């Protein structure tokens, strides 16, 4: 067996492409012609008929001139752009260019599928209607799976095959009967039956699901997924997508009649919509809800869901004026999911938030003026609530001469609150302060002898914000951001607007890049940075203290391609006060035709220290192994472990995986074994291993 990965499609009988011939001339060649009876001509001896992209080959053939019909009572072979049909008897009508085939074997070249049919009617445009068929995408002689059906329509324009009274047989054993089944007959992303998955895990017991794809219309479709769980009961999920000229969206509803372990019925719903109400007005809706906080922990088999802490519900209207201003209106709320929180930690609702942002387009002597204003009504049960209004006009000077660039910006931020249910002091606090920043950088470049481009960019960023006492201001949407490269050039170390940190500091940073000559891909990118505070930054948050004067932590970031396919990245944050690293991140990434490996170490002081190893490697042309292990070194235990094996042939694939991951705040694990069978050609959705492994993002751009 060679080590080539299993081909996406099986190799079917392929006679190569037909030389094209005129559409209005039917050409017949034969050894002999006998036109005995009136209007009937018998051709014999390696007869070949060619019309446009169609071709018939047989030993004998009869042409009826009155009916303008070709009759073939011997074994014949028909070929067209999409079909290859071998039939015992066949007919071809010259007027309608329709073919009729009896007792035939057919092959769909484009999608690598084949089958047999008692009879097939084939229209000029390639639409086919077949009776008593069998169908598979396995190569000739291999009947690992077949569909048998009373009737099959092949709609070439839609690219869909629709079977009636269909039975799916796996290795000859009937597995599923369905009165209606659709599947793709070209490579458009559409499918009929998705692939079934069978598992058994500690949260749901034996867990069997078989998604069915419903192609309702060219621009909206749905997936219906019945799911049987031995420990909990039967669940049904319906996920739909729609694509309209001015909007697109998807929705998903799950309903579990009554959960034996939970004691009552449970469900979830999700709705995402993006649409244009006019060419300038856009509506964006994100809605997700679950019937109870433990829903994902119990029912989802993927750590990406069980690790969610909140579900966002928001609707946002954005008006973009042809001038230079944008108005946004937002209503937003969150549903907290199970975790060790008290109500006080829940996020505030924004009912509503109004934003206005404007910036002059042209600049007057490299200077532009702008304003951003915001009014938000924050509410949260038994907490301080209120309206916060902010107005922030600013003036920005920016000049770039290529070799050097300079920017300066002066803002005036005025914020006012109207609070209620406020236990601390004034109900109408306000705060007014200027924010000044100046930014300057030099750019050096060099073409190294390999033709690659090297860039060196030192940069200085000075920030001045006077101190304003803000301890009495509420904390609605504010928190301290990560100390990382973006914060080196940020004008406030807090995100949100309830706190604007006082600052009198200078950031020094250096970026060094080496780019490949050919592709311009990054061979090396190193960045260093550090903030020096001339004064202490005294504004604080309940969970974020003040920062002393003097130099802040040193930051270094490095991305480097070690060799073809192997790249390393690392992030280091070193604290001069403690003389230790407050954050380190190291990662190795290996990509080499099918072999994918990632090894990462992540440490954030006081928060986490974890390793993350993932591997996906072909063992032979049919076998592939994959695995991921996330361990927490602080608690010295694995948080998410996955081991998977995949056996793939050109027409089916079987994936088995074992998974154990931390699922809820009580520290319980969900561990289970899952089996997934994919009948290639019945489904084009590729969710298989990829869903379990980290996305294939490439921080280095490309390798």
């Amino acid at each position, binding site marked *: 067996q060679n080590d080539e990965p299993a081909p996406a499609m099986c190799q079917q009988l392929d006679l190569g492409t037909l030389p094209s011939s005129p559409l209005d001339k039917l050409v017949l060649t034969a050894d002999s012609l006998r036109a005995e009876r009136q209007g009937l001509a018998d051709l014999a001896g390696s007869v070949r008929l060619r019309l446009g992209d169609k071709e018939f080959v047989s030993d004998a053939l009869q042409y009826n001139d009155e009916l303008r019909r070709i009759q073939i009572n011997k074994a014949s072979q028909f070929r067209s752009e999409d079909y290859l049909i071998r039939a015992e008897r066949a007919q071809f009508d010259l007027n309608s260019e329709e073919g009729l085939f009896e007792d035939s074997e057919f092959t769909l070249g484009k999608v690598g599928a084949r089958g047999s049919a008692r009879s097939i009617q084939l229209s000029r445009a390639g639409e086919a209607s077949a009776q008593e068929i069998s169908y598979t995408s396995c190569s000739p002689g291999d009947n690992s799976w077949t569909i048998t059906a009373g009737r099959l329509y092949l709609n070439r324009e839609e690219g869909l095959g629709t079977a009636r009274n269909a039975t799916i047989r796996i290795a000859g054993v009937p597995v599923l009967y369905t009165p209606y089944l659709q599947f793709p007959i070209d490579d458009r992303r559409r499918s009929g039956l998705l692939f079934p998955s069978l598992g058994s895990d500690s949260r749901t017991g034996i867990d069997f699901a078989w998604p069915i794809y419903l192609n309702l219309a060219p621009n909206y479709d749905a997936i219906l997924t019945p799911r049987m769980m031995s420990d909990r009961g039967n669940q049904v999920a319906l996920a739909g997508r729609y694509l309209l000229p001015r909007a697109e969206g998807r929705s998903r509803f799950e309903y579990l009649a009554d959960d034996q372990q939970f004691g009552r019925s449970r469900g979830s719903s999700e709705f995402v919509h993006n649409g244009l109400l006019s060419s300038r007005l*856009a509506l964006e809706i994100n809605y997700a809800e679950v019937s109870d906080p433990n829903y994902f922990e119990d029912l989802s088999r993927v750590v990406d869901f069980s690790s969610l802490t909140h579900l966002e519900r928001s609707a946002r209207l954005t008006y*973009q004026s042809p001038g230079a201003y944008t108005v946004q209106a937002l209503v937003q709320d969150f549903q907290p999911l199970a975790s060790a*929180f008290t109500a006080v930690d829940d996020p505030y609702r924004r009912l509503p938030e109004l934003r206005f942002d404007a910036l002059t387009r042209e600049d007057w002597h490299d200077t532009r003026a702008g304003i951003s204003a915001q009014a938000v009504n924050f509410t949260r049960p038994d907490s301080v609530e209120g309206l916060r209004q902010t107005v922030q006009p600013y003036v920005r000077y920016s000049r770039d001469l290529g070799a050097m660039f300079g920017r300066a910006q002066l803002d005036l931020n005025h914020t006012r609150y109207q609070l209620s249910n406020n236990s601390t002091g004034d109900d109408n606090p306000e705060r007014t302060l200027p924010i000044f920043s100046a930014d300057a950088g030099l750019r050096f470049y060099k073409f190294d002898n390999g033709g690659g481009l090297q860039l060196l960019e030192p940069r200085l960023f000075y920030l001045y914000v006077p101190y304003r006492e803000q301890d009495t201001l509420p904390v609605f949407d504010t928190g301290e951001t990560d100390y990382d490269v973006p914060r080196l050039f940020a004008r406030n170390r807090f*995100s949100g607007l309830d706190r604007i940190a006082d600052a009198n500091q200078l950031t020094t940073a250096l970026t060094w890049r080496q780019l490949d000559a050919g592709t311009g891909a990054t061979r090396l990118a190193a960045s260093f940075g550090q903030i020096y505070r001339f004064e202490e930054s005294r504004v604080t948050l309940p969970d974020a203290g003040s920062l002393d004067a003097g130099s802040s932590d040193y930051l270094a970031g490095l991305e480097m391609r070690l060799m073809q396919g192997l790249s390393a990245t690392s992030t280091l944050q070193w604290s001069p006060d403690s003389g230790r690293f407050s954050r380190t991140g190291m990662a190795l990434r290996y990509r080499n035709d099918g072999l994918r490996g990632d090894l990462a170490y992540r440490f954030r002081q006081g928060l*986490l220290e974890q390793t993350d190893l993932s591997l996906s490697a072909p063992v032979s042309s049919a076998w592939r192994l994959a695995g991921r292990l996330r361990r927490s070194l602080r608690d010295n235990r694995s948080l998410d472990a996955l081991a998977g094996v995949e056996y793939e042939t050109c027409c089916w694939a079987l994936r088995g995986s074992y998974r154990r991951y931390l699922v809820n705040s009580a520290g319980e694990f969900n561990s289970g074994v899952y089996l997934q069978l994919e009948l290639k050609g019945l489904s084009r959705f590729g969710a298989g291993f990829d869903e379990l492994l*980290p996305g294939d993002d490439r921080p280095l751009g490309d390798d």
Partner: protein
Amino acid sequence: CGFQFAGSRPLPAVLDSIYVDVEVPYRVSEPPLETALRARLSQRGAEVATRADQAETQLRLWDLVERRETLSLGPDGKALEYRLVISVRYEVRRAGKLLLPADTLSVSRDYSFQPNRILAKEAEEAQLREFLQGEMAELLLLRLEVGLRETPPEPANVVPLVPVPAPAG
């Protein structure tokens, strides 16, 4: 050590007159990537057209996709660290002909997550999105520059780089 001021580094002539179009279906406002690209191009002296037919070269970007991956898990199984990955596909055409084959550019950055500071983290994510799309604009421009460079580097005045001590860590 052989470095020269960037001012003397001309933009490839092909980019002198360019139209930038980022396809974000069903959105009305310009993504930060487009704003940054236009700003950088015009700062480098290119003439950024407002309509496609006004420029000989078209830089088309589409599939601007953002993905948030769970990285580290806390002792309660909840996310402690996310990775924001933004990717875009791009191609450069001139008079209908492909100058650069379509390619994908993706950037990502990790950030910590506190469940009790959702709104703050959402605002931080928005700042991160703006920062990443700005970085994307810079990387894209560098790729175009290297990919579209016609004149070979002037070998005359380039002094081999004195090896800078490898950065720490």
